[in-house]
């Protein structure tokens, strides 16, 4: 046993310096982006796209915490985006516009929802867990569509972004960008420390073999539940930011398709590395944004009408691309970066 553990640990440690480069490059890129955006001329567009990338990066990382480290496939994580978003929207509509109140309320609501649904969901295993988290997500989605006072199906527009201690600092897209980057960094540092702690090791133990963890004296349920709550709160934070970014909240925040997209981001980037989830979110959103143009460019040999038609139906390329990535690129983007080292 110990021998096996040592042989497995060896390549891990030799990988370490290389893998640490990725998050540093990633955050450096996010920090440098506003400067490049200013130079590009279309800074509003670039900033809002990258802000979205960072917000979904937080949400995907939150999901990676339980999916990558706990093997808990939550198919209802978009619900937490909705909780965060609606906490901001509902409080703002009652005149409470300060983020210093909104964010704690959103985090508390997310934690409560995660605690209750997690306690029920974690009694089930495998496919049933996927389905019950999906059901809770749908429950919240329908609750949001029936909130007639807060826009119902159509959602609600925020009159402005949240205040921070009374100041309107977030109105500036640049300031908001930095706040999102700060949140992303904070969430990353926090998740990293959670994963590296004793708690994180137990969680990974339950991923590998829950029965064995129980046999050596840990209760997997408690650790999984705490991880689920932490993950829900981080996703709730992303929801607060998303509502502020769009200045709009609607039930569309928490459709099950959105939950599926979050899972896809995590898997696309590579499970269980945290920064992989951010890379995955970036790849997903950028692909979604630019695939129509890419298709238009690639099909230069076709007629104009066909090219426009192709660009319009980009999802017909996106879907199969998804399938191919699942079938052939195991380990996601981080897996591809890692591969030369093994070979």
């Amino acid at each position, binding site marked *: 046993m110990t021998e096996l553990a040592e042989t497995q640990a060896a390549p891990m440690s030799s990988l370490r310096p290389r893998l640490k480069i990725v998050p540093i490059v990633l955050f450096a890129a996010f920090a440098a982006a506003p400067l490049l955006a200013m130079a590009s001329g279309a800074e509003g567009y670039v900033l809002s796209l990258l802000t979205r990338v960072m917000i979904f990066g937080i949400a995907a990382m939150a999901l990676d915490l339980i999916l990558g480290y706990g093997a808990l496939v939550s198919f209802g994580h978009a619900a937490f985006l909705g909780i965060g978003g609606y906490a901001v929207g509902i409080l703002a509509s009652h005149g409470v516009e300060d983020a210093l109140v909104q964010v704690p309320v959103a985090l508390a609501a997310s934690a409560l929802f995660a605690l209750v649904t997690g306690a*029920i969901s974690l*009694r089930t295993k*495998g496919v*049933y867990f996927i389905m019950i988290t999906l059901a809770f997500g749908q429950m919240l989605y329908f609750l949001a569509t029936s909130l007639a006072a807060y826009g119902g199906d159509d959602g609600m527009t925020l009159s402005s972004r949240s205040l921070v201690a009374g100041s309107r600092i977030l109105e500036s897209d640049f300031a908001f960008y930095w706040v999102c980057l700060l949140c992303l960094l904070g969430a990353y540092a926090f998740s990293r420390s959670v994963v590296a702690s004793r708690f994180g090791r137990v969680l990974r133990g339950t991923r590998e073999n829950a029965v064995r963890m129980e046999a050596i004296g840990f209760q997997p349920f408690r650790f999984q539940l705490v991880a689920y709550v932490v993950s829900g709160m981080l996703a709730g934070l992303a929801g607060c930011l998303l509502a502020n970014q769009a200045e709009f909240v609607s039930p569309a925040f928490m459709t099950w398709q959105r939950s*599926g997209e979050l899972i*896809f981001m995590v898997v696309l980037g590579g499970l269980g590395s945290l920064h992989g989830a951010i890379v995955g979110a970036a790849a997903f959103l950028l692909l979604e944004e630019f695939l129509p143009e890419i298709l238009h460019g690639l099909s230069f040999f076709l007629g104009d009408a066909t090219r426009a038609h192709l660009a319009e*139906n980009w999802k017909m390329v996106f879907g199969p691309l*998804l399938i191919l990535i699942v079938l052939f690129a195991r380990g996601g983007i981080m897996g591809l970066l890692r591969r030369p080292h093994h070979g």
Partner: protein
Amino acid sequence: MNATLLFVQALNGLQFGLILFLIAAGLTLVFGVMDFINLAHGVQYMVGAYLVAAFAAWTGSFGWALLLALPSALAFGLLLEVLVFRHLYDRDHLDQVLATFGVILFLNQGVKFVWGAAPLSVPVPELLSGSIEIASGLLYPVYRLAIIAAGLVVAALLYALVNHTRVGMLVRAGASNAAMVSALGVNIQRLFMVVFGFGAMLAGFAGAMVAPILSVEPGMGDNILILAFVVIVIGGIGSIRGAFLAALLIGLVDTVGRSFAPNLLRLVLDPAAASQTGRALAPMLIYIFMAAVLFFRPSGLFPVKR
């Protein structure tokens, strides 16, 4: 007034439940036998509806359209199996969820590409149009009764097929232990294909039957897929009997709940609050129901013994 309304809503619920059963039956078998999560099952329902719409426009007759749509839906299901799903059986659930999610994206856009984004409508067949009086002064559309009848017939056929034929026996054995069935010399790959194609055809049939009463549009399978998952999870994955009972329960709870939740709440709340909460609560009922079932029976009402 309330008794007749309840009766009509119960009929609607029964009709909805049977449609759900047609979709859930294939899903639960694919799930049970192959341990395969097929999110793309909902788009097969959509494809069935589109096929019948296209064939009805071409032949001008719903009957012919249905006859042509069924084998087409079967062929389409088999095609998907060979192209995509076959490569996913030995992957984990996460990969299956993602790849079939990709199939949904592709096909939802695909039908838009072929038939346009605008909803299509299919005329109710001449023979079954109109309404009949089922109680004094109470009219009910004949076509909805026809859906109920068709659903019950298919359910009975399915029961006979699964419980009293050799293929059915293999399917049940596969749901209990696929590896053992394979070890006993059954071509499990072929069994998978049969189950898959058959499930796709049932979903297509459900889509074809509802095409005249719903609008045929891209994404119409997405929400019903989730309901079908709720059904099979409540019923116990792999159990046809469980799927049947759970489908009827969900159909009734959803339909009756939507029209009666506000009324019931009025007994304990004041009218304005009751209608508000009732409208909020009604669509959530089935999910609350599912959570409750799973809380007490974590593997559904009729778990398949392994």
